[in-house]
């Protein structure tokens, strides 16, 4: 028996089957493509954007979409298309980083609660309850209030708050796994707790981790947009889709195109992650194997 | 005993039903032919997956409709062909003329509605009675199926009742409108042995009192010997033998039936090894040409592998096997 690798479902075969199931889901594959495209746009924004997003040409301000500026210009004469492309960086980075932080915290808390049981569980479950009882965004605003606005603080604030769903589910997984025979065997066989957790529990939690983090990204992106809209997130001159919508408010009578484009960008991005997340969840779901 | 009437209450003629899936067409039922007379108890026996439940669900037209479909054949109930009936027409028959009880009483009752109300629902769906009258009839029925303190049970929810009680409630629900046919799909399989006997006796008593015909589906030979009058044996979606319960045990004709009988360990015999039928039931997407049992049959001849056997025999004992045809002796 290979003691080094964690014992989990026949790992290679499992992911192969999942990929096959995912491939058949046309909608999910389209969204996978869109998400990949968004990642490319975010990574290579300087190469893709037609103009410098911060370049202000006051003469050209508030122009309607045309051949020079495909999506028009904002109140400082900056090219909206370029700003949207750079905004993609912000949205995706917030989504990914906050979920990363949240998943790590959530996994740790969930494992501690499920594995060490009794008092630790009671305390952690209570903390989870407290965090979930309170509106997410309000908490985030409170933290931003303390830390001050700005992108980096936003990563921290959102990361600190998005761990609860993960923690709950991981706790459930660990409780279930703890009672399974092979984990009992591992515990009896000796080895530090950390080792058992990392080599045996973690691989079996991959399903939960992948699904909750993917499905958490849309929420994080929307939260960033909302915070930036309220002025508590990204600060000027950085271009976030949320702050662009906020700025566009002053010009809704004259330049409606300004309000529309960033919103559409958000919808496409969030929808793509949502649908991809749904597809991933179905493809990886061990219960749906027939 | 029952007085046998020459009219058939229910007659299935060459019923073919298949599932159309991603893996192709799966013929779940092939040329199923059987009949039940008024007041008769017909047992349907066979291994899991042989099509017994599918036959019952086809009669009730409750086969999930993608992917299942009745391809051909007739289901004649009192002369009406149920395969041609509209949805509304079928709703009038279900619960009122033909009723069905299922294997798992645990999950077959609505968990959030009290038991008595579920029985009342069956009444109000089919008859124009007032609430009070429906309630009274439901209470009466609960008492009739042998439940003590019907009043208390009437207001109880299914999770508060034991398995045996839930099955009695199912029976009450099924018989409250006095249907002419009751279909029981493995009614006792999920219950304790002692409760099994009680439920079977209940079904028999109610049949005697109400004159209901019963189609009893089971894989348990013991149940067949206790309750059934005539028996149909199914294999891989086909009917392979039809005879009385007595003859099934004393003079089985089809090689599959014979194999089944030999597999039952007998108390008065000492055997070293249990008898098994070699091979396994064919998958629905890989059915053999010719007789479906041929690959496992000890008597197979060439004609068995090439052609599908027709039904041979007398009115009271029929078998789908070439061995009983007139050409058998001539073939190699």
């Amino acid at each position: 028996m290979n003691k080094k690798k964690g014992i989990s479902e026949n790992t290679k075969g499992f992911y192969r089957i999942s990929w096959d199931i995912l491939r058949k889901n046309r909608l999910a594959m389209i969204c996978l493509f869109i998400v990949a495209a968004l990642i490319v746009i975010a990574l290579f924004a300087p190469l893709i954007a037609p103009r410098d997003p911060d370049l202000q040409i006051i003469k050209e301000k508030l122009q309607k979409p045309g051949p020079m500026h495909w999506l028009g210009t904002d109140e400082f004469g900056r090219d909206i298309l370029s700003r949207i492309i750079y905004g993609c960086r912000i949205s995706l980075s917030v989504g990914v980083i906050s979920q990363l932080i949240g998943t790590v915290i959530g996994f740790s808390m969930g494992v501690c609660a499920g594995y060490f049981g009794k008092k630790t569980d009671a305390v952690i479950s209570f903390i989870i309850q407290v965090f979930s009882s309170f509106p997410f965004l309000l908490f985030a605003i409170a933290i931003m209030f303390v830390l001050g606005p700005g992108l980096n603080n936003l990563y921290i604030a959102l990361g600190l708050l998005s761990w609860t769903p993960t923690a709950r589910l991981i706790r459930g997984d660990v409780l279930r796994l703890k009672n399974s025979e092979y984990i009992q065997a591992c515990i009896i066989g000796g080895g530090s707790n950390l080792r058992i957790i990392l080599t045996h529990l973690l691989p079996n939690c991959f399903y939960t981790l992948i699904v909750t983090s993917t499905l958490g990204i849309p929420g994080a992106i929307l939260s960033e947009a909302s915070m930036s809209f309220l002025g508590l997130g990204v600060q000027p001159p950085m271009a976030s889709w949320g702050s662009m919508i906020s700025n566009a408010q002053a010009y809704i009578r004259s330049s409606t195109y300004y309000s529309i484009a960033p919103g559409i960008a958000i919808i496409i991005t969030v929808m793509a992650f949502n649908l991809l997340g749904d597809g991933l969840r179905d493809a990886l779901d061990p219960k749906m194997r027939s | 005993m029952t007085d046998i009437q020459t009219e058939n209450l229910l007659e299935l003629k060459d019923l073919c039903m298949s599932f159309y899936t991603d893996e192709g067409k799966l013929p779940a039922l092939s040329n199923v032919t059987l009949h039940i007379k008024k007041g008769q108890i017909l047992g349907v026996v066979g291994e899991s997956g042989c099509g017994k439940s599918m036959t019952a669900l086809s009669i009730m037209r409750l086969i999930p409709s993608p992917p299942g479909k009745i391809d051909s054949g007739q289901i004649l109930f009192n002369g009406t062909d149920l395969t041609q009936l509209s949805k509304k027409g079928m709703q009038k028959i279900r619960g009122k003329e033909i009723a069905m009880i299922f294997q798992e009483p645990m999950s077959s009752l609505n968990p959030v509605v009290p038991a008595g109300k579920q029985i009342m629902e069956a009444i109000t769906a089919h008859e124009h009675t007032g609430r009070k009258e429906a309630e009274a009839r439901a209470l009466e029925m609960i008492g009739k199926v042998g439940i003590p303190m019907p009043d208390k049970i009437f207001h109880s929810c299914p999770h508060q009742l034991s398995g045996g009680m839930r099955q009695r409630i199912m029976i009450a629900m099924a018989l409250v409108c006095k249907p002419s046919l009751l279909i029981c799909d493995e009614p006792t399989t999920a219950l304790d042995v002692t409760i099994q006997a009680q439920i079977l006796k209940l079904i028999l008593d109610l049949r005697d009192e109400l004159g209901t015909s019963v189609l009893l589906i089971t894989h348990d030979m013991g149940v067949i010997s206790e309750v059934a009058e005539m028996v149909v044996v199914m294999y891989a979606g086909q009917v392979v033998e039809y005879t009385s319960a007595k003859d099934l045990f004393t003079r089985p004709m089809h090689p599959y039936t014979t194999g089944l009988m030999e597999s039952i360990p007998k108390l008065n015999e000492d055997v070293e090894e249990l008898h098994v039928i070699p091979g396994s039931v064919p998958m629905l997407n890989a059915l053999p040409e010719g007789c479906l049992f041929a690959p496992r049959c000890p008597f197979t001849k060439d004609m068995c592998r090439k052609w599908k056997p027709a039904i041979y025999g007398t009115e009271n004992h029929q078998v789908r096997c070439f061995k009983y045809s007139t050409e058998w002796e001539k073939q190699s």
Partner: protein
Amino acid sequence: MKKYLLSRIAQAIGVVFAISLITFFILNIIPGNPVQLMLGEFATQETIDRVTHEMGLDKPVILQYLNWLGNMLRGNFGTSYFQGRPVIELLGQAFKVTAGLSLMSYALALLSGIVFGIIAAVYHNKFLDKLLMVLSIAGISAPNFWIAIILQIIFGLRLHWFPISGVSSFAAYILPTLALGTRYAASISRITRTSMLEVVKQDYVRTAQAKGLPSWKVTMGHTFRNALLPIVTLAGSDLSTIFTGSMLIESVFSIPGIGKLLLDCIGNRDLPVIEGGVMYIAVICVLIYLLVDLLYAVIDPRIRLGGENE
């Protein structure tokens, strides 16, 4: 049942206390002297110190917390630094507006969400189902403040059907209600559909059909009735997020609700209002969760009645 309720209430109280602790300590470790902000640039150090002492802000934090908590329990949420009025008054006024908007939005969302969800489930895999599902995904993916702005543009500015700011008339509530409710209608329709499709696979639905019940009775009395539980769960957690949702909507439509009040006070660091407002909202959220738990007991007799009798 009583045990269930009591344990839930005890838990709720514990949560509220925990939130009060977290809130107070987070908000009081911020840098920047609120008194200085309040008094303006030209205040002397002496005045600042005097006012600080008067307001009890020079005491140790724990003492300040206990004072604050004690006051709150007696209904005294303090006085706004900037508006000089009791916080509780400001909150109460603003809350009425927010409550009206939120309840209307949620009622609309529940009605439309459940109806569309049932339709999608009944017509599963047909065109109507797919259409409704695409719309509902779009609904949960669009930021509600953006929907608000688009509604303003189309129905306010172009068509002139409804006012786009303030709460002067009932008509003024219509666009904000639509904007706030869209997202919830979408998520409710999704969960309704999913739940219905799960339940329809259950044995007891087949039993209902075998009894010869008409299709609508099977759908509503058996399938939907059992599909309710997850919908109620979602409704519960949704209702608490409606406050932050309304914050954004109030901002777009200039509605004087609790969200806008909090935002304004965050801007000028009006600490008592922020602390009071956060606690106010927290208590309401916890109450909503309690109500939902109560609702579970009503809907699911398994919780209400307990175990087996023979």
